[in-house]
């Protein structure tokens, strides 16, 4: 394998942030390529700064490089200036470690975390000189895979990928590598790609789109034809039963240049059973699997010592819910080896006073702002989405934050939620106004900012059948809210561009016909659609029109609960009757408790895979009223059978 660095280097003087392209991170590996070793190029379809911290990619990077018969390097989407220079000089997409071209890798595997990065996937394949469509690839072309949260509806990318992985990647990645290695071991002259596809379809959790053909009628998909015996009717996701067996990443990459989340990140649990109905992550990553507290502390201490970072984030979908949170925080903050200079951040705070007290204890060094996510402006709205935070919960949390010295509070909301009325939107301003009032009790100048995102119904959630608000409706609601908020001093409103929400919605619940649209958007220059300076809804609308499709069929159309959905054959374990029941309860404004502390309601995430929640305590966290049905004052044990460790 030849390094392209000699050709790349002359470009680096003339592009923005050249450190994006040189590798050299602490923890980076420069594996030696050779026969019999399956070479993986792990790709993140956005800039280096966004992609580098991705924990999923880093976990797979380490696991693959530990295998004797596999190796992994990384690549990210080159920024537009670099892409232009690379195309002008005839340089293909390359790895940042050994600077080897994508065509020289056996596998390129994309992490799909956001729908608007899909056009970058196409661009990277093209830049990597890999035939764009699976059907165009021969026996020697790089195998194209994808994993990550978006793969629960991969249909828009179905024509471009050889296979898609559902769920946790720790175990399945080496199984796939073995299958690819065996196929590559065959004589290239007689090797057939269909044999690889059939073998991959035999790996649990792997979906091979080319073995299925969707059938359409007008705006809808009406069926799915299975084209090969190797394909199963339903592909179930993979779930790692015990996170304690996977203490990865062991050597988190420490980049030479600044990236987002530039700190040590330790995942404390995976999954969430809070049951927020809008939240795809909470639905598809069930059940809850906590990392043993002692292992968390060990990973933190080791990580701090080797990286030199002074901040560690304990990551999960709701870290304050971690059973051992107080002990872990105390162990880290009080460890004399860290000299009092290590701060702990909890990226997802629960909305209650107790959580703020914990935050106060650990953020003694830099107390800048606190963020809460009530998501809905009124109690009625929050019952619909099952984010069961009372106004009192929020006010107590905000009171605690301001009284503890914070002067800036950020609130996250969604608009365009099912059943939403104008009073729910205006409720956001009202909550903001009350929060400013609370702050003024403690400080003269306080800022409350409300960030308002447009809701996109996602596959595998109770709202997968529901219509999304139109661009005009979202814009109207934002204007309504801004008008109201203008009269409230100290309240700032920030909002997400409704056109981008619409494009995300088109792709999120799109079917296989979206492939042509994505290709049209990409060919029209539509890369980096996550970036507002590059985003253009017009390209998507034109792509749809040119392919005889209409945006409203994907976004504002109500689906029937018995209609075929493009992702029906892909399963996160959730029973359809659970999702349907949750949808009905949502419309009836009925909440559902967190099953960690209440009896099982059989969503399917545990029972389908013979798993159990792995939590260290049967006591809900003190002060956590959300979804537990418990009092605000302290945690009370609830009668429930729990498994303290995985079996």
């Amino acid at each position, binding site marked *: 394998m030849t390094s392209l660095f000699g050709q790349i280097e002359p470009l*680096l003087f003339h592009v923005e942030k050249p*450190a994006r*392209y040189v590798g*050299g991170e602490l923890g980076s590996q420069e594996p030696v390529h050779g026969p019999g070793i399956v070479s993986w190029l792990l790709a993140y379809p956005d800039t280096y700064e966004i992609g580098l911290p991705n924990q999923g990619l880093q976990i797979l990077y380490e696991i693959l490089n530990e295998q004797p018969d596999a190796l992994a390097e990384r690549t990210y989407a080159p920024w537009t200036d670099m892409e232009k220079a690379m195309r002008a000089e005839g340089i293909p997409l390359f790895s940042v470690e050994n600077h080897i071209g994508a065509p020289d890798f056996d596998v390129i595997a994309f992490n799909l975390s956001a729908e608007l990065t899909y056009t970058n996937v196409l661009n990277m394949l093209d830049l990597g000189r890999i035939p764009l469509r699976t059907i165009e690839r021969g026996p020697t072309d790089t195998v194209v895979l994808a994993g990550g949260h978006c793969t629960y509806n991969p249909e828009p990318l179905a024509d471009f990928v050889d296979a898609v992985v559902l769920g946790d990647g720790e175990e399945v990645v080496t199984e796939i590598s073995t299958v690819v290695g065996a196929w590559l071991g065959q004589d290239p002259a007689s090797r057939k790609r269909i044999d690889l596809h059939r073998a991959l379809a035999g790996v649990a959790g792997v979906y091979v789109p080319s073995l299925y053909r969707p059938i359409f009628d007008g705006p809808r998909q009406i069926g799915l034809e299975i084209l090969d015996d190797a394909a199963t009717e339903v592909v179930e996701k993979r779930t790692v039963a015990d996170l304690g067996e996977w203490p990865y990443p062991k050597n988190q990459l420490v980049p*030479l240049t*600044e990236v987002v989340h530039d700190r040590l990140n330790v995942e404390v649990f995976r999954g969430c059973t809070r049951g927020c109905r809008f939240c795809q992550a909470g639905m598809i990553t069930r059940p809850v699997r906590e990392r043993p507290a002692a292992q968390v502390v060990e990973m933190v201490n080791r990580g701090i010592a080797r990286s030199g*970072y002074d901040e560690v984030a304990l990551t999960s979908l709701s870290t304050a819910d971690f059973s051992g949170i107080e002990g872990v925080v105390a162990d880290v903050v009080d460890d004399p080896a860290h*000299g009092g200079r290590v701060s702990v951040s909890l990226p997802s705070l629960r909305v209650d006073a107790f959580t703020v007290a914990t935050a106060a204890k650990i953020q003694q060094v*830099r107390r800048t702002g606190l963020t809460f996510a009530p998501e809905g402006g009124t109690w009625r709205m929050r019952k619909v989405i099952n984010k069961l935070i009372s106004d009192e919960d929020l006010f107590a949390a905000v009171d605690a934050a301001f009284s503890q010295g914070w002067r800036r509070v950020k609130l996250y909301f969604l608009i365009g939620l099912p059943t939403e009325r104008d009073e729910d939107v205006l409720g956001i301003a009202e909550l903001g106004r009350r929060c400013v009032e609370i702050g003024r009790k403690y400080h003269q100048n306080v800022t409350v900012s409300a960030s308002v995102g447009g809701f996109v119904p996602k596959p595998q959630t109770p709202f997968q059948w529901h219509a999304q608000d139109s661009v005009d409706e979202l814009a109207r609601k934002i204007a309504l809210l801004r008008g109201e908020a203008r009269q409230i001093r100290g309240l700032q409103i920030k909002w997400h561009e409704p056109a981008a929400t619409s494009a995300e919605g088109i792709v999120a619940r799109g079917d296989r016909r979206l492939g042509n649209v994505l290709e049209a958007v990409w060919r029209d220059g539509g890369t980096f659609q996550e970036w507002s300076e590059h985003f253009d809804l017009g390209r998507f609308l034109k792509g749809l029109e040119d392919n005889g499709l209409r945006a409203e069929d994907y976004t504002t159309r109500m689906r029937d609960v018995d209609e075929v959905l493009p992702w029906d054959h892909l399963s996160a374990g959730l029973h359809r009757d659970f999702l349907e029941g949750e949808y009905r309860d949502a419309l009836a404004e009925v909440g559902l408790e967190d099953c960690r502390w209440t009896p099982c309601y059989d969503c399917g995430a545990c029972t389908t895979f013979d798993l159990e929640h792995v939590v260290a305590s049967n006591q809900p966290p003190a002060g956590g009223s959300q979804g537990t049905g418990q009092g605000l004052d302290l945690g009370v044990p609830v009668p429930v059978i729990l498994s303290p460790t995985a079996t």
Partner: protein
Amino acid sequence: MGTIPARLRIRYTKTGRIRYTSQRDMARAIERALRQAKLPVAYSEGFSPRPLLSFSLALPTACESLAEYIDLRFSPDSEVASEWTVADEATPEEIGVVVDRLGSLLPGGIDVVAGCGLDGSEGSLQEEVTSCSWIVEVAGMSAKQLDERVASLLNAAQVPIERVRKGRQVTDDLRPSVHHLSVEGSGATPGAVRLHAELATKPRGVRPNELLSGIDSTLRLVRASRTSQWIERNGRRLEPLTADGQLLGSAVPTTTIGGR
């Protein structure tokens, strides 16, 4: 671990791929290395305490350097649980230990070559350094053509260049900042021509690409290496710290570019 002076100046080189990082990235790397070494760094006061370290004039991203400097402050009262002892003075051997330790923790391509204690009477690097020597490789012109351009620049009374300062386009006169400029023959990169320049850092520094825009706008920057930084004292040019550890010493300027 050892004894360290309360004020320490280090000299390092930045060559190879690490040169594509920014000055800000370099500061982050130093901060991480200081924490890993458990050095009792003194922190600033206030709401968001930062380690007290000061650089000389920032090295532009993608330029390499054989002569970079940082002044560090240590305090026995630092909150860092440290095995180092802070003293008013430290021996060269003791300084060698901390220099080696920092060097081993910094990313590849950063080599700490020397260190020495300061007594606090020295001015800051930002204020004291008055000029820098550069080796610049350019493409787009033959050595002979370039020679003519250089001569006409040196003969000009004024050399106006456009640059962006604080978001505004301004015109500055480059000429007073060019203390020396000469063509040194062909560069290490095929087809490139090598220039040797000494550029003033006051009233503001001149970057290699700004120098090129003053010579000819068609020139393309291929490589740039800062080879020395100079402090002018009583008509003599001194280095803030020589590669062999002499504070405010004079050295023969090197004209070689370090390898990758």
